[in-house]
């Protein structure tokens, strides 16, 4: 095992990132059910189904991102050898991921608000066929 510090860093980063994702997703979509019920005017089945689908997408995006940024790049100019470097890199990754989660959360919230606004707009009642007035 040539570099123990990196493995320790990964072992700290992964659980924190995954737990954070799990917690944020659960909270967001537990409270989003009310929005969904409002958007779909009380129809429970499609509201919860839509909520579930958004939740799945959210989990996928965040899991992918957490794994994507995991790699710690070590080179000659950047040896990963001190505990200080460990703490700095960890804070950079975990903090960055946290900011990303916040951005995703606000994005989802914006989508919910937009959906609610559109759903509450009165639908225009337009005639399906245009009846030409008789000209006599």
């Amino acid at each position, binding site marked *: 095992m*040539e570099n123990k510090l990196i493995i320790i860093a990964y072992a700290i980063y992964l659980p924190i990132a995954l737990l954070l994702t799990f917690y944020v997703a659960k909270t967001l979509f537990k409270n989003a059910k009310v929005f969904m019920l409002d958007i779909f005017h009380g129809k429970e089945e499609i509201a919860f189904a839509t909520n579930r*689908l958004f939740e799945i*997408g959210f989990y*996928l995006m965040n899991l992918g*991102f957490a794994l994507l940024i*995991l790699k710690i790049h070590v080179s000659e100019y950047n040896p990963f050898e001190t505990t200080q470097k460990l703490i700095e890199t960890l804070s950079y990754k975990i903090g960055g991921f946290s900011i990303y989660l916040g951005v995703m959360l606000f994005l989802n919230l914006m989508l919910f608000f937009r959906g609610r606004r559109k759903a509450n707009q009165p639908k225009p009642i337009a005639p399906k066929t245009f009846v030409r007035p008789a000209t006599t």
Partner: protein
Amino acid sequence: MTYNTISYIIYAIITIYITVVVGYQCYKSGYVYVLSIFIEEEISMSINKILLLGYYLTNLGYAITIINTWNTINSITDMVNELSLRIASIVFILAGMHYMNMIVLTLWRKTSLSKK
């Protein structure tokens, strides 16, 4: 038992689990959408099942095929790096297809509802 073999096994377990769970959840939740487009229960159930089957075939097939392109792994650090990059790419593909499906289904539902 090389590092590569161990990573393939871990990768296969995680990817198959994620694909199957996501697929099943979407199958259950998406039924309402398919039902609202095709209205009849039997047709919607069959279409939903066919969609699920196609999803499993393409995604599991791709995840397994891509094992062919892995680099050699020399240490545990490399293994963690390579594993996370590969799993991340599969997950992002799943996410992309997921959102695309939702957009297509929602548009379809809107046009089918507005036709009535």
